């Protein structure tokens, strides 16, 4: 089980990006973290994947505190981050360098086949479309068979059609081995399509504002009433999470305005 225990992150310049976040994600669950831009959701994900260290609290996977990148955790970034000097197949097999060549070849071929890129194995990453590149990145993260996969706004740079296509594709891949997925997004539709549970983060500092169970049957019908209802709930929570910050700003503005009138 993946657990965040009172996790906080304060940067050296004093900015509090994340404050007192506690979460538990059961094995095989899909948790989607959503929030406005700059609310600290990406920072939170970097703490989980060990690229940054929490200032307070700890991230715990199966009882062990995470202190750095972990072999059981795979990561997909917002950009594909493929290595431009390796062909698509070598990018996918990047995490298998210590395996025997025959095993590596066979697993890379299987992974490429699974994401529908078998015919692209020997070309350079620059020749891929945005969607193909992100599929390659997903295959690269999945090939080490991680228990937990973290995705940081994985489809936000793609066009609407490709995005929907890849969301379905991701769920399809997830069904193979059922890893725990933690997905960060700012897209409500993406959250409802993917999540077992949506975690709404409020900004400055980032903290858990609401947790919403979205236990709709899969595959999810984007046109159904239940989908629409879940979406409304998340939207409402998201609005309220942002409104809280707005009210604070409001009060400050009024105070200043009052002072100006007085003088």
């Amino acid at each position, binding site marked *: 089980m993946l657990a965040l225990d009172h996790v906080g992150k304060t940067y050296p310049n004093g900015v509090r990006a994340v404050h007192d976040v506690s979460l538990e994600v059961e094995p095989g669950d899909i948790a989607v973290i959503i929030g406005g831009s700059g609310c600290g959701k990406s920072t939170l994900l970097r703490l989980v994947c060990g690229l940054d260290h929490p200032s307070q609290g700890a991230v715990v996977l199966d009882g062990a505190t995470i202190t750095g990148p972990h072999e059981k955790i795979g990561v997909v*970034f917002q950009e594909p981050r493929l290595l431009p*000097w390796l062909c698509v197949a070598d990018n996918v097999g990047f*995490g298998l*360098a210590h395996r025997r060549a025959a095993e590596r070849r066979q697993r890379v071929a299987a992974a490429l086949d699974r994401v529908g890129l078998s015919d692209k194995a020997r070309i350079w990453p*620059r020749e891929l479309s945005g969607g193909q590149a992100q599929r390659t990145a997903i295959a690269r993260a999945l090939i080490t068979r991680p228990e937990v996969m973290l995705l940081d706004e994985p489809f936000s740079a793609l066009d609407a059609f490709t995005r929907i296509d890849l969301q379905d594709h991701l769920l399809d891949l997830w069904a193979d081995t059922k890893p725990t997925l933690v997905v960060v997004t700012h897209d409500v539709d993406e959250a409802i399509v993917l999540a077992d549970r949506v975690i709404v983060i409020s900004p400055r500092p980032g903290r858990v504002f609401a947790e919403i169970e979205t236990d709709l049957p899969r595959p999810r019908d984007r046109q159904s009433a239940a989908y629409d209802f879940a979406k409304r709930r998340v939207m409402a929570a998201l609005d309220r999470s942002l409104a809280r910050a707005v009210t604070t700003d409001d009060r400050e503005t009024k105070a200043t305005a009052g002072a100006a009138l007085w003088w």
Partner: protein
Amino acid sequence: MSPIDVTVPAEQRSVPAEQQVQRDPLERFARLFLGLALPLVLALLWEAAVEAGLSDGRLVPPPSVIWRELADLAATGELQRHVVATLLRVAAGFAIGTVTATVIAAIAGYWDMVRRLIDPTLQGLRAVPSIAWIPLFILWLGIFETSKVALIAAGVFFPIYLGLLGAILSVDRKIVEVGWVFRLSGAAMVRRILLPAVLPAYVVSLRAGLGLGWMFVIAAEFMGASEGLGYLLIDGQQLGKPAEIVAAIITFAVLGKLTDAILAAAAAPFLRWEDAFGARR
């Protein structure tokens, strides 16, 4: 009524990328010819001008005279002797300069502390025109080969040091994070991420270094040599033989271009992945 034909026409099937890169030999020839056109036309014009008596061609000898000079020098074995002497100096200086610059830049790029310690000093030394070292090098190392090779090495050092250090420092953090996520060890990080990432800039700096190597070999040979292309230049000046000077200059041009092309060709297989403006054909 005939049934509808649904087979895909051959020209609509995608062509493998490798095949598309293959260029027409005629086009390659045209490209080579285009590069040679300007010097060839200028040479022919000058030859015609001297032939027609518009100039006596004494100070600027026509191509035919230069060609004869080159042929004479080659026939006596003089040209080969000078070329070998100069090539050996450039090779030794380039090798020493490259190895030192690469090692120091790699260490300075990897350890912040080392960089803060040595980089300001090296930047200060870089501001000194390398020719200014000649008197000191002669005092320290004598007037023979050692001081010449040292001067060339000093000239080669700086572009390679700067190029490689800059490349290491500007490696994309996002790519490095991919290495971290896959928990690469320090050595694996260098071999699998940093090295390939800096290679394009490193090759450019090697070529710049080699160019400076050819520049400094002349300076080194001007300061007193009994053989080498630089000696040939001085000899031509002192004996009033412009054809010999131009012959030496042409030899320099050919050798410089040739060694640069060899370096570029040796690096090309490692850089085929580059998606750069200059890589388009």
